[in-house]
């Protein structure tokens, strides 16, 4: 219940925050919403000596409409996403995902930036980022760079973030009008990580799939883009057989960890089932 001692820093500007990360190196951790990090610290699984709180950095907040791109500050909370009229209209997939994360109180604090940069395969936004083809804006001592989501999630608890970099903004290409969407998440209860989950974006031309994007949560060391599954659908009719084949292809890339949620066989099968559910729902929501 009680974390170890540490020093607390509340920088007022981003350069200050970056300087602190440089100074303290791997003895420092960033504090965003705190609802992944603080619970770990309370049971003493994480023991950083320095916490750098991003809470005062106003430049990391806000959701901006840049026409065909939404720019979301990394410190935007899940609750902010849920209630944002802009996001509801332009990218409802993000809203659906945010609603399925944790519980109401956690969502007032948990941030999209924290969820993405933690590198935890159990977090939901990474798969959403892959599905959306989003980009992540990173700022560090070497300046600013933009990394595609495809290149950001490297391994278990390992992202493209350098030790002195901060994720500042998420850039989401706005899905074309008429795109169907769904985030299907199987979990044991409210607040649990996904047993399996799939994010789908789907654009139809009549009864044929014009384009599709599928990404999986908690089925490997990182979120996974199910490219083979996407390829199997593009250009073809979307019927039960096609959906089943896409699910099989999605399952073929899964490498989940056995735990209290289920064994490897079950979790893999559920990745397939969530892919099916997400495809079907996205199809209902898509314009033809």
């Amino acid at each position: 219940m009680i974390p170890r001692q540490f020093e607390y820093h509340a920088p007022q500007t981003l350069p200050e925050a970056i300087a602190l990360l440089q100074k303290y190196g791997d003895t420092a951790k960033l504090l965003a919403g705190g609802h992944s990090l603080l619970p770990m610290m309370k049971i003493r699984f994480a023991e950083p000596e320095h916490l750098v709180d991003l809470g005062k950095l106003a430049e990391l907040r806000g959701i901006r409409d840049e026409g065909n791109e939404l720019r979301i500050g990394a410190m935007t909370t899940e609750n902010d996403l849920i209630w944002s009229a802009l996001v509801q209209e332009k990218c409802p997939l993000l809203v659906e995902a945010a609603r399925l994360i944790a519980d109401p109180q956690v969502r007032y604090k948990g941030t999209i930036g924290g969820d993405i940069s933690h590198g935890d395969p159990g977090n939901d936004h990474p798969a959403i980022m892959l599905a959306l083809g989003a980009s992540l804006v990173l700022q560090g001592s070497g300046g600013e760079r933009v990394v595609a989501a495809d290149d950001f999630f490297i391994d278990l608890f390992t992202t493209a973030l350098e030790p002195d970099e901060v994720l500042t903004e998420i850039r989401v290409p706005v899905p074309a009008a008429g795109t169907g969407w769904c985030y299907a998440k199987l979990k044991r209860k409210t607040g649990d990580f996904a047993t399996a989950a799939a994010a789908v974006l789907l654009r139809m031309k009549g009864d044929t799939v014009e384009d599709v994007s599928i990404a999986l949560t908690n089925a490997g060391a990182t979120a996974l883009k199910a490219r083979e599954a996407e390829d199997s659908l593009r250009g073809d009719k979307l019927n039960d057989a096609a959906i089943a084949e896409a699910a099989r292809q999605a399952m073929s890339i899964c490498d989940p960890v056995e735990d209290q949620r289920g064994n490897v066989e079950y979790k893999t099968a559920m990745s397939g089932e969530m892919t099916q559910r997400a495809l079907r729902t996205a199809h209902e929501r898509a314009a033809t």
Partner: protein
Amino acid sequence: MAASPDLIERETALQGLGVSRLRKEDARFIRGMGTYIDDLKLPGMLFGAIVRSPYAHARIKAINKDKALAMPGVTAVLTADDLRPLGLHWMPTIGGDTQAVLADEKACFQMQEVAMVIASDRYTAADAADMVEVDYEELPAIVDPHKAMDADAPIIREDIADKDEVSHGKRTHPNHIFTWEAGDKDAADAVFNNAAVTVKEEILNPRVHPCPIETCGCVASFDKVTGQLTVNVTSQVPHLFRTVVAMLSGIPESKIRIISSDIGGGFGNKVPIYPGYVIAIVASIVTGVPIKWIESRIENISTTGFARDYHGIGELAADKDGRIKALRFFALADHGAFNSHVSATVLPAGLFSICTGSYDIPAAYCRVDAVYTNKAPGGVAYRCSLRVTEAVYLIERMIDVLAQKTGVDKAEIRRRNFIKEDMFPYTTSLGWTVDSGNYDAALDKVLQAVDYEGLLKEQEEKRANGELMGIGISTFTEIVGAGPTKVCDILGIGLFDSCEIRVNPTGSAIARLGTMSQGQGHATTYAQIIATELGLPSDDIQIEEGDTDTAPYGAGTWGSRSTPVAGAAAALAARKIRAKAKTIAAHLMEVGEADLEWEIDRFNVKGNPAQSKTMKEIAMVAHTGNLPDGMEQGLDASEYYDPPNLTFPFGTYVCVVDIDRFTGETKVRRFYALDDCGTRINPMIIEGQIHGGLTEAFAVAFGQQIPFDENGNHLGNSLMDYFLPTSFETPHWETDETVTPSPHHPIGAKGVAESPHVGGIPCFSNAVVDAFAHLGVTHMDMPHTAFRVWQQCKALGIEKRDDA
């Protein structure tokens, strides 16, 4: 003849028995002004944190306290060696065993208490606990109770290895605790050997945990000057706690005061006396200041009294029409490393022999073998009525198994076997005399309410369509109100209970009882009972429990004994007062007592109602000199009630589930619960108890378990994994009732709080199994998580879509 408006007004003013009056205790809780244990701060108070064994079974070679003691703010580090000179390193349990207070040269379960750090505040205590260095030598652990009595099994309890009896009969192996049996084995065997139909299933009640939102804790305060020990504690059994502490500490019981104030949920988790409490008491004696110990949630789930862990085998013998002729039930009970749960001397397996249920079964035999394993101690807890959850689960599952085997409908088979209305009081073949019941009326009412025939038809259609829909029925009989002292005791102390009432001159009253509410609404319900008996408004009747200095001796509240035992005591004490009041009234009105009749709140002279005296008026007179010759002043009474029997609430529950065969997810579509608890004191409070008990049953049936790996390490002992349903997961509950009073209880009430848990669990399970019954499945063990249900679907080859 309809009651006059005046009578109705007087009755209503009492807010007495039967009224859904709002609760008196709510005022402080809605303001956040309850007084729970962690709210208590005493001057000079220090904080205790426990160092725990990471191993399930290990020798403790050495403990180094130096680094911890060197930290500023640390007062002491206590180990078994510090308690040994006081003889307090072991303590008696309420199960008749002994338990290590601090691990004495070996640890017997993961997270067993090894040392306690005493420091100025909880932050320092946490840091210091990490600095205590313990040298362990790991030993092989027994995790599977089936292996506990193997010839080559490691001995867990070296302290009693040479004792062939501890407190419940002969032990046949060092890891054996007891074997208990009831009924007539030969008679049952004879029936089985000749039966037309027999069914047999292995049925598991997994290890689960009550997990109240408030964990256990205490503030122990020993006054060196007066020799008085005061322990504020989360205890459902303050008096038993005091007696045990007196026995183990040598402090006279008259100098020990146990105070339970507000408790944030109990459900049996706060009945045992935990090592943490005892170490805190010792620490207070040693340091002379108050010591607070509050456990964390992980400590709570991992080390305090778990529930169940009964590995059962159920057998029924019947004729081809499903009429049961004999029953044989067996359970292997995993008690963990110490037998610490509440146990009557002659009933170490609690009330398990109620397993004949609501049915007229001519021959029956049951046996429980209890063993030690390298896990935390416990077994009886969690709204179980003393192993009744285990017993009722077995019979309600087995009667469904029998229904499937014989092809008889699951409701009909119950009717064929019910104890009929005219057979009560009915003595079962295992020796319990069921006081009253009307099982047919309850079943009929529920089946009609849910349109059972319609559901069966829908199920047929869904099955033809490859869908899984289940209808679960549970017609349970509970046994509560422990209990008659000739069979029910704890360490020899009988399970009577008590009520002491004092009426003051201005007509209000205070009543103190030996039970202890943890949310059941005693401050309201006891006041309602007394209000109706005395004719004084329940608003004016103060109820007190929990302070052993003032409350009369009682066995506490474990889950539903309060109404049957202390509620009876309250009614009878009140009647003693009313009898005295009648004598005073007769004296005042100068008539004979035979000329008086009691009407709501007063004594009227028969035939002349203008001549009357209210209880309020009599209360004042009772404190004056105007009394009959030889009568003492005062209007008080106390009653120690030794119940003549337990009570037997019952009910019928129906559950409808829809199962997704591709994921294993179960949706509870409908749950209809009819309960009969006899006389209903406060229907609003009863409904609340039903909602709560059903929700806990839902949690047990669909997700709760305490899993271990083969070395006895916990695999899911925090709320990350332990399934506590939120408002989002919890189904909607429909409640209903019949009323069949208990003939032996002064107000005919039976108690109700554990019924929904006891009856709910098999109802959910029966529904899930029923969803697969047409595919030949006869039983599935809990918890019915999506994963486990999916595995059943896979075994049947139905987990994939048809085109996959």
